[in-house]
């Protein structure tokens, strides 16, 4: 699905990480940890082509990121669900319409009942008609997750999806992502929450990667 070969990234003030080689296979489940500012969000941005690496090769769904046209990149994005760390929405459209965007903007069929079910599962059933600016922090994250998975993507990338959620709701969302993974979606979650990682590891074969010291390492068994 997503292949990094000797990838380095540098925003201009020295490299964040160097020579990262990693493969995210279909159906795999990965966590990404590391101290704040280590480059987790940067890594995810490389995975959906918001950034192009300063060095090395990134292959998204069998296409070289560097060689993709803007339309090919958009086409690839249709099949990658993303939960951004700062969840952004179209502030003038209801939560429901926002969640349906990945389908409606690319001409795919939108099923009202699917959207209703999904919003109910993430606990936003009653806020479906609300405008995004009136959502609470946690509600925004849940809406963003719903938007990322509405189109049953091949890959799900989630950046700190439970940072503003209580433990109960975090578990609920994690179950949703695990369910998705069982249906074949490759999942990559950047998080600081070790409890969450432990909870997931009990359910699914998950690997933990850690960015530290400019390297991507497989985290030790202490988790």
């Amino acid at each position, binding site marked *: 699905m997503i292949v990094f070969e000797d990838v380095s990234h540098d925003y201009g003030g020295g490299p964040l990480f160097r020579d990262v080689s990693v493969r995210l296979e279909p159906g795999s489940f990965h966590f990404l940890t590391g101290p704040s500012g280590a480059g987790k969000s940067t890594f995810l941005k490389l995975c959906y*082509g*918001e*950034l*192009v690496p300063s060095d090395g090769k990134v292959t998204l769904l069998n296409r070289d990121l560097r060689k993709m046209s*803007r*339309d090919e*990149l*958009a*086409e*690839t*994005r*249709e099949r990658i669900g*993303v939960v*951004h760390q700062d969840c*952004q*929405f*179209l*502030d*003038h*459209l209801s939560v429901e*319409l926002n969640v*349906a*965007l*990945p389908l*409606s*903007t*690319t*001409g795919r069929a*939108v099923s009202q009942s699917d959207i209703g079910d999904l919003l109910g599962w993430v606990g936003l059933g009653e806020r479906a008609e609300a405008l995004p600016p009136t959502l609470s922090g946690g509600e925004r994250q849940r809406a963003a997750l719903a*938007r990322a998975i509405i189109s049953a993507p091949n890959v799900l990338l989630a950046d700190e999806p439970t940072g503003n959620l209580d433990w109960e709701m975090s578990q609920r969302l994690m179950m949703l992502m695990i369910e998705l993974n069982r249906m074949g979606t490759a999942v990559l979650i950047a998080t600081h929450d070790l409890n969450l990682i432990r909870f997931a590891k009990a359910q699914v074969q998950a690997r933990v990667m850690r960015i530290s010291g400019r390297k991507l390492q497989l985290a030790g068994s202490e988790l």
Partner: protein
Amino acid sequence: MSTAQISNLVVPGKGQSVWLVTLSAAAMAFLAVFALALSVTASKLAHTWSASLAQTATVRIAAPPQEIEAQTELVLEVLRTTPGISAARLMPVEDQAALLEAWLGPDLPLDALPLPRLVELTETATGPDRQGLRLRLAAEAPGAVYDDHTRWRRPLVQAASRLQGVALVSLGLIGAVTAAIIALASSAALSSNGQVIRVLRLVGARDRFIARAFVRRISTRAFFGALAGTALAMLVMLAVPNVGQTVPVFEGIGFDGVNWLWPLAVPPLAMALAWASSMATAFRVLRGVT
């Protein structure tokens, strides 16, 4: 929800920057209609002036009384056969007397005077070969003098064509300023919607889709804004008493007849302008967002 429907929804309908497009289109359309009116008026004026002045001339025939009738006949004959002259008419003595009255008073015994005869010509648009006409007249009727009023005519014709020039320059200026302001307003509308563009790119929307959504919204706004501005300007021009009716020199500042159709071109033009400028801006802004 279909793609067309969602494409109408993704760009916020309100917001200062979208209003800015509407209102600047309205304002500039308003001004453009006035400039158009000025231009149409100037063009009519220039036409009227140069037509009425350029196409009249006189031939004055002064000769001893026994020859004058014969020379007048000759002159009229010459004029009838000269290409470029559409009519020649001997001015009746009464008209001549009326013309002179201002200077000579009503009591002067003009009949007793050996007054020269005046022949009024109406020339065609191209006019006669003036030098040739003078030579022929000199040969056939030595007492005849051709006066094409050049001396009086030139400054007025020049003035009229200058006025038209000024009006066209104004129209051009207003057009350019309109273009700049609408382009800038569209570009402000686009830039202030950076978040909309980012979200749409994130969910996989194509550049075409995003650009079309913005361009459609912005050019519709420009069209309706310009429509309102044009309508307002036309109303104002209808309401203001027509200057031309009262002052013959400046006949008809404003539109009349078929000229009322001119301003109707303003809204579609504004829309086309907004379309082109927002299209260009959209793709420029989009290239900055991955």
